[in-house]
Structures are given as structure tokens and as C-alpha cells.
């Protein structure tokens, strides 16, 4: 079949037509139905924010947490007069509050130093500066009080010395703060008072430590008797332990004679440990001199 004939035959298929009644009936039926757009109109939402309702429960707390952390972090770099500075002072106060008794005075002094450094960087906001300066004075008074609260005299002494060293630059810092003469004088006075109090504490604590209580002598006598009289009890000891305990006893006696009570107590405590190891129920009170008012039984 030629291509022409084929195309002609194909054209003949144009005669195929639907039943006209059906065609009319179909059109009428279609036009009677409602178009889809009248039945359903989808809500249009911005796709960018479509996730918000879905993750609302997570998103809002996350944003709040982020905002809180950001504010908290940023606040640490602020200076007096800034809106976020109270957050910084609040954080510093929390640090002091949660510190242990032994470290509290040191942390308070560091906070005082930081605040004085902050004040020295600010020139305006006179009201805030005055208020903070007053609080610094109060904090400095508390430092010496907190040192007194430390039970262990040796620790108190060490901290006092540390504070004495660290508080040397406080006066220079106070001079750099833009305060009125009266206020500056008051702050300088507070710094001086604090330094004097700390120095007084150092002297007093050193004396306390060096003054050996009389009962310490009794302990040493008892221990001496034990090592000379209770030879039978020592036969189970290893020769090393016997030599070690006797050396400790000699060292404790020497320290006591030299007035070094702390070393004497330390040596007695070591002897006590050896006695405990060898199942001898021996106790020697080896706390600081103040707590040695009621010495316990050695044997």
C-alpha cells in the first residue's frame, strides 16, 4: 500500500463520530456537576513556616533556652550601666553562695576585684558606680569574717596569706574608679580595713598553731610507754613497721620540743594509722589544737 493511499484511508476514519444524542446527554450531565474548585478549596499557607505548628512544643522551649544561654553568656562581658549587668552580678553572687566554706573568702575577693576592674572601665553611670562601690566595701568586710569561719587553722592561715597577696592591687584599682572624693575615701578605707583584718588574722592564727596544747605531751608520753612496755604486742609487727613507728615517734617528740605542734600531730597521726593496721584499737586525737580540748584515749 502506498503511503498516499494509507493516509487517505486514515483520513476516512474521520467519519467515526459519537452518537449525537449521547454527546448531548453527556454534555448536559457534565455541566450539571459542580466543578472541583467549588467543592474543595485548599488552604494556602506559606511553606516556609509550615513546620512551626508541628514542632511548636520543641521549638519554643529551644528558642527560650537559646535566648537564655545567649543573654547569660553575653552578660558576662557587660559593664555597669548595661541592662544585662545585673545578670553578671547575679552570677557572681551565685558563685560565692555555692562555694565551700574554705574557698568562699577567696572567691569573694576575686569577685570584688572583677567588679572594681569593671568600675574602672566605666565613666558615666555615676549612680550605678556608687552603689556597686558601696557593696564592694561591704564584701571586703565579709572576707575577713569568712576566714574566721574556717575551722582548720592551717587552711585558714594559707587562705589568709593568699588573700593578703591578692589584695595588694586593690588600692590602685580603687584609685582608677571615677568616684566622688568621699566615696573613694570610703572605698579606700574599706580596702585598708580589710587588709589590716586579714593581717591580724594571719598573726593570730600563726600563734594559735604554734602554741602546742599540754595534752599533746601526755599523748607522746603514752606512746613512749607503749613502745617500751608493750614489747610482746610488737612481735607480730614487721621489723620495717617497728622501725618506722619508732622513727615517727622520735620525729613527733622532736617537733613537739621545737614547738612545731602541727608536725607533731601529723607524726602521731601516722603512728595511729600503723597501730590501726595492726588491729590495735588505738586512737589519738590529731585535729588542730583548738579541737584538741578533749583528747581521746590512746589505749
Amino acid at each position, binding site marked *: 500500500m502506498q503511503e498516499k493511499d*494509507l493516509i487517505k484511508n*486514515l483520513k476516512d476514519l474521520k467519519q467515526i463520530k459519537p452518537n449525537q444524542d449521547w454527546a448531548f*446527554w453527556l454534555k448536559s450531565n457534565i455541566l450539571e456537576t459542580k466543578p472541583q474548585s467549588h467543592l474543595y478549596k485548599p488552604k494556602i499557607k506559606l511553606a516556609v513556616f509550615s513546620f512551626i505548628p508541628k514542632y511548636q512544643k520543641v521549638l519554643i522551649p529551644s528558642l527560650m533556652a537559646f535566648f537564655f544561654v545567649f543573654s547569660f553568656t553575653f552578660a558576662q562581658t557587660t559593664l555597669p550601666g548595661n541592662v544585662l549587668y545585673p545578670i553578671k552580678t547575679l552570677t557572681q553572687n551565685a558563685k560565692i553562695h555555692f562555694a565551700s566554706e574554705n574557698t568562699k573568702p577567696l572567691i569573694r575577693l576575686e569577685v570584688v576585684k572583677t567588679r572594681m576592674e569593671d568600675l574602672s572601665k566605666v565613666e558615666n553611670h555615676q549612680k550605678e558606680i556608687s552603689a556597686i562601690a558601696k557593696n564592694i566595701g561591704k564584701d571586703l568586710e565579709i572576707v575577713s569574717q569568712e576566714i574566721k569561719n574556717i575551722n582548720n587553722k592551717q587552711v585558714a592561715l594559707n587562705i589568709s596569706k593568699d588573700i593578703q597577696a591578692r589584695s595588694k592591687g586593690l588600692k590602685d584599682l580603687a584609685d582608677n574608679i571615677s568616684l566622688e572624693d568621699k566615696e573613694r575615701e570610703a572605698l579606700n578605707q574599706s580596702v585598708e580595713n580589710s587588709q589590716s583584718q586579714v593581717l591580724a588574722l594571719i598573726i593570730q592564727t600563726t600563734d594559735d598553731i604554734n602554741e602546742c596544747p599540754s595534752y599533746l605531751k601526755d599523748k607522746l608520753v603514752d606512746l613512749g610507754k607503749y613502745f617500751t612496755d608493750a614489747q610482746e604486742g610488737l612481735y607480730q609487727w614487721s621489723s620495717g613497721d617497728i622501725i618506722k613507728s619508732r622513727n615517727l615517734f622520735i620525729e613527733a617528740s622532736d617537733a613537739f620540743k621545737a614547738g612545731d605542734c602541727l608536725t607533731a600531730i601529723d607524726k602521731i597521726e601516722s603512728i595511729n594509722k600503723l597501730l590501726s593496721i595492726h588491729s590495735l584499737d588505738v586512737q589519738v586525737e590529731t585535729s588542730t589544737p583548738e579541737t584538741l580540748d578533749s583528747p581521746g584515749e590512746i589505749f
Partner: protein
Amino acid sequence: MDKKEFSEFYNKNIDKVFRFIYLRVDTTETAQDLTSLAFLKLWKRQDSEISNSTAFLYRIARNQIIDFYRSKSKKPISLDKAGEIADFQVAQPTFVEKIELTLEMKRIKKVIQNIKPIYADVIIWHYIDDLSSKEIAQILKKREGNVRVIIHRALQALKEQLEV
């Protein structure tokens, strides 16, 4: 497209679409059903942005044929059921008349149904419905050049089948 516009569009295209479907399926009833569904879908989508309604209608019709053969190959589906699915009452049997075809026309119809569907489509559109290759390209979403190649190959395939 309002009712008037649709009515005009319907009158202009009903013969072509029916013929296109009729040449691809076995019975008049099936052709009527699929034609009904095609026009109904177009009417229901009238608010959508359709740039070329004729091309869109042919695409619907083509998909109806594909779906018809797909469902036929899986399991037979009654035409009443098809009407229910489409939420539309199917053609009444009283409207079905036997279309008189010459022997040659029957032969060509049979061959059209045996060649590749894409070839059958372009043969009907180009040689029977007088659609240009550009219009066919819009329906098939292909390049005009590609369509010309398909038309040429389709005619060759039809010729070969007729000679067998």
C-alpha cells in the same frame, strides 16, 4: 472556563476525543465511558491554570486509555463500577449504536491497536485529527523535532503491519 466556554470547547472536541479513544479500544461503550471521564475531569479542573485545554484534554484521554488497559490486564472492571469510581453516571446503553466501518477501516483500526501505543496516538492525532507536530509536541511534552521522528516511524510501523 465557564459553562458557555466549556460547552463550545466540548462541541469542538467531542468528536476528536471520542474517535481517538474509539480507535484505541475495542467497544463503543468503552470509548463512550472513557470519553465521559476525560471531559468530566477537564470540567472539574476548570479553575486550574491550564494553558492549552486541547492538549490537556488529550493527555487526560491518553491516560484514561492507559489506565483502562492497565486495569484490564490486572482484573476486569465493570463499566458500571468505573462510573461509580468516577462519581459519574456512565453512558446509557440506549445511546450505543454500532458504528458502521468499511472493511478497510476495520483493518486499519485493528492495526492501530497492534502498533506501539505512542505510534497509535500520533497517527490518530496527526493523520486523522489533523493536529500539527507542534500541537502533538504540547500533548506529549516532547520537542517538535522528536514528534516528527515519531510520526514518521509510526507511519512506517503502520504500513509494515498492514503489509503483513
